[in-house]
């Protein structure tokens, strides 16, 4: 559905996107992760036909076309990070304009306004909207066409609770219908549940590509267990370090980072030391941690 072939984009001396090659298949939901300035938006805009690569190629749709050909954009719907609409027009007038522009049947306007919880505000000028409402209007415009490919740039960043609800409903509905979704985020937590696959960008380079299963493994491997004991037992930390070398004592807690599979052995050791467990917290690795790690690694590669 989307194919980047060594796509490169430079702005002046800066390389925003550096030879990305990736393919996203039909029905996939793929998240593009990375810190600010890593090239996420540029990558997405290349797929939306807003930016042309300086080298390499970008193709969308089936059969595949270059998205800067207007007709190729029929397959896609793009929602920028922040939308803006003329303030003198009403929400309905804007939705109607885009509906007619794409030749979509008239009843869709009402449907998307309702979907975006704007049916009460449709007759009001956009100038009177709150920021969240404007963003919801953007969402309504983006969902007007039943596009095969949804390109969403930081979709959750500016949404209010009504918008988030609508957004999740939209994505799930489209996923169920077998549509492809490609979106960016640096607020990883919100979109974990949506993506099948994750691409991580750092300094314009693709530094990792993970399936949801691989991500789960990674996260599991980067879990943490903190055990608070009633007393200090000499030798216990050393014993634990033999199976989990990164273990450390932080105040009255022992913190053990590492794969979840180690945890039963660690607990056995604690018990055999005779200490009482006052508290125990075990969690999988946070996505941010993984992502920071990958970015750091990517940064090393670039140097």
């Amino acid at each position: 559905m989307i194919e980047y072939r060594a796509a490169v984009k430079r702005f002046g001396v800066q390389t925003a996107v550096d030879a990305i090659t990736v393919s996203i298949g039909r029905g996939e939901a793929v998240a593009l992760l990375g810190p600010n300035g890593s090239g996420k938006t540029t990558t997405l805009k290349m797929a939306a036909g807003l930016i042309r690569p300086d080298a390499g190629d970008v193709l969308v749709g089936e059969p595949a076309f270059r998205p800067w050909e207007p007709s190729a954009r029929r397959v896609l719907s793009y929602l920028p990070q922040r939308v803006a609409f003329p303030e003198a027009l009403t929400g309905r007038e804007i939705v109607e304009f885009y509906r007619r522009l794409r030749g979509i049947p008239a009843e869709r306007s009402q449907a998307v306004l309702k979907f975006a919880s704007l049916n009460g505000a449709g007759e009001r000028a956009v100038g009177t909207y709150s920021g969240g409402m404007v963003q919801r209007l953007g969402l309504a415009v983006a969902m007007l066409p039943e596009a095969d490919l949804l390109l969403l740039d930081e979709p959750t960043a500016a949404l209010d609770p009504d918008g988030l609800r609508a957004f999740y409903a939209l994505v799930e509905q489209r996923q169920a219908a077998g549509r492809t979704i490609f979106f960016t985020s640096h607020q990883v937590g919100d979109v974990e549940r949506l993506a099948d696959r994750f691409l991580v960008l750092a300094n314009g380079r693709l530094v990792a590509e993970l399936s949801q299963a691989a991500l789960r493994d990674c996260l599991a491997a980067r879990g943490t267990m903190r055990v608070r004991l009633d007393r200090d037992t000499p030798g216990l930390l050393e014993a634990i370090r033999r199976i989990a070398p990164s273990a450390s004592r932080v105040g009255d807690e022992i913190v053990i980072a590492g794969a979840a599979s180690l945890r039963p052995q660690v607990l056995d050791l604690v018990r055999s030391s005779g200490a009482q467990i006052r508290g125990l917290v075990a969690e999988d690795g946070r996505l941010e941690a993984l992502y920071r790690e990958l970015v750091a690694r990517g940064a090393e590669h670039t140097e």
Partner: protein
Amino acid sequence: MAGESVRTLILCARQEMLLAARSRWTQLFAVVFAGLSLAVASSGYILSGGSGLQDFARTAASLVQLVLLLVPLTSLVMGVLALTPERGGAEILYAQPIARPILLLGTLIGLFEALVAAEALGFGVAGLVIFARTGSDGLAGFAMVAAGSAVLTAVFLAIAALVSVGQHGRKRVRALAIALVTWFALALLFDVAVLAAASLLRSGHASRLLISSVLVNPIDAVRTASLLAIEGTGAFGAGSLALLRFTGGPGGAALLIALSLSLWIVVPTWTAMRRLARMDIA
């Protein structure tokens, strides 16, 4: 395919016209233009110190001055404001499966219609005053002034398009600044420079320079055509004769002025469309 493009053009134009009709700036322009037109039309009769000279040509010539002063500036500013959308406004529009040049052209047409409507309002009001007191002799001249005003609107919207293309978001201020400099150059600096150059040249060369400059500069071209239409060949005294001799008569002059103005409309619009089609909406 072509039919679809036309439909899109009409859609964009209608949207932009709706927008412009609701814009405070357009409304302000309409009110100011109508007010000043009315003032010019009414005061044309007390021009000569209470002696009540009824001179259609004078009144219409004052209207021309009003047009030359207000229309280019308004068209440029309105054009730049409309064509440099806020951040996020351009992206969602240009990601639609419509060629960007069509969207631009449609917007320009809509703006043109709205501004011309505002001007028509002014001319209508002025015309009611004028034609209640003078005969229909000046009708053609008056129509010519109104047409010149519309042409000038098109020219400066085209220039606005060229200045604005790609200057969305925070670059809007820059585009506005460029527009103002362009206006200042065409309305004033150009003629001053030409006059200065002409004063240093031999009479024949100076004449040809002045005449060419009057044909090349769109504001001068519209002024020349309008005043010739209103006042006839007496408009610029012997200057008219030099102009007509250079252009090979009234037909040639009309043709050259029309050519110059068409180029001013077509070339910037076309260039803006081409540049917009190729540029990155970063």
